[in-house]
C-alpha cells in the first residue's frame, strides 16, 4: 500500500516536471531584455527556495534531536534522520543554484561571479552545510549526532543573513522580484509557468527527501539491532 502511494506520488511528480518544462520552455514568452537565457529562472529560483526549505527542516531536526535525545530516544532518532536528509538534499539543491546562477550571470551580466552580498552568502551557506556533512563523516561514536545537531543550529543561523542580504545591501544580484520595491514583480504571462515549476521542483525535492529519510531510518535501525546483538552475544 505504502509502496503504491510512493509510486503514484513519484509518477505525479514526474508528470508535474514534464508539464513545468513545457510551461517554462514553450508557454512563457521571451524576456524583452534578456532573451531566452532568463528561462533559467524556472530552475534557479525554485532550487533556491527548496534548498532554504530543506535547510530549515534540517534545523528543526537538529533542535528536535537535542531536545529529545534523553527523554524520547525514538523521536530523537527520527529528528536526526530528518536533520541529515534535509542537509544532504539541501546541499544538492544549493549546488544547482550555484551552478545555474553563474551560467545565467555570464550571459546576462557578462561575468561568471562577483563577490556581492547574495552570491557570497549563498556560497557560505553551501560551505557551512558541506562542513556539517563532513563533521558527520569525521566524528565517530555515539556523540556524533549531538555534535552534528549543534553545528546544524550554528549553520542555520546564517540563513536569515542570506535572505536579508539582498534587501540590505545594494548588490549585483537583481533586487527582489517578488515583494520588492515598486516596479518589481513578474509579468503575469510568466507567473503561471513560474508557479508550475515551483510546484514541480518542490514535489521532486520532497520525493528525494522522503526517500533519503527512509534510507537513513533503515540504517539507524540496522545499527541499533547490531548494537543490541553485540550486547547480547
Amino acid at each position, binding site marked *: 500500500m505504502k509502496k503504491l502511494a510512493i509510486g503514484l506520488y513519484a509518477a505525479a511528480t514526474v508528470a508535474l516536471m514534464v508539464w513545468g518544462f513545457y510551461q517554462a520552455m514553450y508557454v512563457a514568452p521571451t524576456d524583452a531584455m534578456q532573451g531566452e537565457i532568463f528561462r533559467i529562472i524556472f530552475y534557479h529560483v525554485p532550487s533556491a527556495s527548496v534548498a532554504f526549505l530543506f535547510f530549515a527542516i534540517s534545523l528543526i531536526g537538529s533542535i528536535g534531536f*537535542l531536545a529529545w535525545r534523553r527523554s524520547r530516544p525514538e523521536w530523537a532518532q527520527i529528528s536526526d534522520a530528518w536533520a541529515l536528509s534535509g542537509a544532504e538534499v539541501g546541499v544538492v539543491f544549493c549546488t544547482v543554484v550555484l551552478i545555474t546562477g553563474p551560467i545565467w550571470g555570464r550571459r546576462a551580466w557578462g561575468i561568471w561571479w562577483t563577490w556581492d552580498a547574495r552570491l557570497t552568502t549563498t556560497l557560505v551557506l553551501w560551505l557551512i552545510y558541506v562542513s556539517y556533512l563532513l563533521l558527520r563523516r*569525521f566524528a565517530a561514536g555515539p556523540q556524533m549526532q549531538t*555534535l552534528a545537531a549543534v553545528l546544524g543550529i550554528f549553520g542555520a543561523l546564517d540563513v536569515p543573513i542570506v535572505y536579508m542580504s539582498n534587501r540590505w545591501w545594494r548588490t549585483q544580484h537583481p533586487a527582489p522580484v517578488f515583494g520588492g520595491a515598486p516596479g518589481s514583480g513578474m509579468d503575469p504571462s510568466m507567473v503561471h509557468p513560474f508557479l508550475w515549476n515551483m510546484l514541480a521542483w518542490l514535489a521532486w525535492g520532497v520525493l528525494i527527501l522522503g526517500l533519503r529519510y527512509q534510507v537513513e531510518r533503515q540504517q539507524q535501525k540496522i545499527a541499533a539491532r547490531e548494537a543490541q546483538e553485540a550486547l547480547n552475544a
Partner: protein
Amino acid sequence: MSRVLWTHLVKDLRIEWRSREAVNSMLFFALLVVVLFSLAFSPRGAFSQEISGGVICVATLFASMSALNQAWAREIRHQVLDAQRMAPTPGAELFLAKVLANFLFVSIVQLVLAPVFLVFYNLHIQGQAWQLVLVLPLGTWALVANGTFFAALSIRSRNRELLLPLILFPIFMPALLAMVLATGSILTGDSDPTLWIKLLLGYDVIFTTVSLLLFDVVLNAE
C-alpha cells in the same frame, strides 16, 4: 566576575605564562603570513592600503588556528576534561574563561604585529583611527569565541586539527567579511564602516550567546 570563571581564567593564563607556547607560535606564524602576503601581492601605495585590512585579518585567522587547535588538547591529557565534566559548575564558565584567555593571547599578537604591519605596508590611516580599536577586538572575539567552541566540538573526531578549520571558516566568513571591509574603509577613509561594525557586534552577540547556551551539550556529549 564569578569565582569559577576567574579560577578557570587564571589557570589558563598561568599555564600560558609559564610556557608561552601559544603566543610565541602565533606571533611567528602571523609574521610569516604577513611577509608571505607581501611577497605574493607586492603591495605598493594605494593598493597596500586596500589589501592591508584583509591581510591582517587572514594573518590573525591562520595564527589563531594553532592556538585554538591545542586549546582543548591540554584538557584532554590526563583526563582533565572528565574532571571538568564531573565538577558541579556550569560548563559555560569554563568555555568563557577559555575564550577570554585566547582572546587575550590573540590580541597581544595583534598589538605586537600592528607596528610591524604599519612599517611593511607603509600605512597611514586616512579614516578615523579610533574605530580600529572597535573593529579589531570585535572581529577577534568572533574568531576566538567560535573557534574555541568548534575546537571543543572536534576534539573527539579522528582528524581533529583538520576538522576545526573546515567547520570554523564557513561560519566565520560573515564576520571576516565585515572585519575586512571595516578595516579597509577605515584605512582608506573611503566609506563609512558603521554598518560593518554593527554587523560585527550583532554577530558577536548572537554567536557568543548560542555558544554559551550550547556548550554544556557539547561538553557532556556522550
